[in-house]
């Protein structure tokens, strides 16, 4: 039994004929924060989505806490997990999207309590109690009755984090959680994520917030053209002399907090 929360082994992904991920190998240890950085189109989202089986890798395997994700090993090779099996494996994973993806017809409380009621089958009262506690954690107890359209982007994203936490996942995946936000709203979301990291949540964060990655990430993974060029501690990755590709990439982010790394 490995101590990896997520183990990515020889994962490649093709969309049609385009190879988007090339033989990725990556281990995300329990309780650690891995930040995925890289230029646009390098495959960060695709890799993250593979870790949630929202995308199926063309080859290779992904293991979530020792269990193969999306597949079951049998005597005659592997087969796809049934929908119920997949839900079971996925229940360890919470996911936060760039576009928040809150359900517009439900209040903040409704969004967070929905899975507790429909999936966990808790009573309305109990589900809402728990959901309220999650909302409090992200500082939005007062906004419980608001619909997504009545919330700012930062608030919506915090509700989305509370929703992803509702079923007590052990792993949280974030796909550019602050990219759709006005700059002055990124702080509140990053703070919630920082607190989550401090609690020891295993996290994989696709981000362009290099400052956040450098300060919160235990590991920085740099993707370029579908290849994982390297993954290492921020100290090592960001220390000069840097890889030329990373250097070039960081140059484009100097105005976004990476200045501290100069």
């Amino acid at each position: 039994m490995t101590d990896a929360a997520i183990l990515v082994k020889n994962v490649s992904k093709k969309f049609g004929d385009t190879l988007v991920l090339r033989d990725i190998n990556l281990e995300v240890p329990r309780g650690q924060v891995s930040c995925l950085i890289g230029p646009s189109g390098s495959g960060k989202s695709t890799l993250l989505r593979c870790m949630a089986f929202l995308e199926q890798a063309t080859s290779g395997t992904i293991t979530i806490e020792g269990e193969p994700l999306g597949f079951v090993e049998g005597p005659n090779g592997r087969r796809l997990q049934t929908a119920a099996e997949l839900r079971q494996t996925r229940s360890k994973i919470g996911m936060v999207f760039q576009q928040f993806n809150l359900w517009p017809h439900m209040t903040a409380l409704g969004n967070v309590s929905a899975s507790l009621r429909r999936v966990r089958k808790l009573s309305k009262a109990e589900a809402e109690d728990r959901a309220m506690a999650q909302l409090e954690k992200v500082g939005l107890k007062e906004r419980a009755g608001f619909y997504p359209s009545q919330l700012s982007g930062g608030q919506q994203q915090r509700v989305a984090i509370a929703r992803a936490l509702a079923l007590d996942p052990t792993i949280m995946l974030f796909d550019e959680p602050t990219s759709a936000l006005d700059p002055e709203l990124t702080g509140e979301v990053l703070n919630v994520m920082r607190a989550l990291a401090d609690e020891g949540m295993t996290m994989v964060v696709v981000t362009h917030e290099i400052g956040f990655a450098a300060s919160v990430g235990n590991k920085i993974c740099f993707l370029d053209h579908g290849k994982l060029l390297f993954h290492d501690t921020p100290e090592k990755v960001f220390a000069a002399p840097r890889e030329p590709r990373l250097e070039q990439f960081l140059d484009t982010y100097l105005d976004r907090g990476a200045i501290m790394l100069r």
Partner: protein
Amino acid sequence: MSWKLFELLLQASLMTIFVSFISILAGLVIAIVLSAMRMSGNRWLYAGTGMFISFFRGVPLLVQLLLIFNLLPLIGITLPSLATAIIGLSLCTAAYQAENLRGGFEGVPIGLIESAEMAGFSRTQSFFWIRTPIALRMTFPALVNEAILILKASSLVSVVGLVELTKMAQNLSASTYQPLPIFASAGLIYLVINWGVAVVGRRVENALPGLPAK
């Protein structure tokens, strides 16, 4: 034209409202079921719903009603004309509503469905708790529109023997020889009902939360 005649028309309009209202609701439920079947991924169900929708959209309502009215007794089912009328109208509006809903379901952003998937919802749960409410919300104006069309189309159900507003107007005009004021009154009543539906519809629409962003 006497007040008494107008009162009879008003009474008959209650039947129009009742039949239309029940048919719209029943049609909505059937339309949701049709949508579920169409999106189930089963090609037989897909083909079946396609045929159902083509038939009920392609054949005039009057012909449908006469078919149902004459077909059911042949297979040993005799229903009161009220039931026959509601069945005919419901099936017809269901086909149209299913087509309206299709646009709604296709407009549900994929991210909302993926977040339901990640929250542990099964396909069925996601369909009922996420996709359907959002699709309904997005197509609500079309639903109001359909309600108005059905209120007007309900004038056809007199062919199965139901006395609603139009049939009552016909009867009264035949017995009183005052077709003009009577049909003018009937028209006015339809107008007022549909105006009411439109106003309430807009109110409800503005009060409903839940349009996806963008």
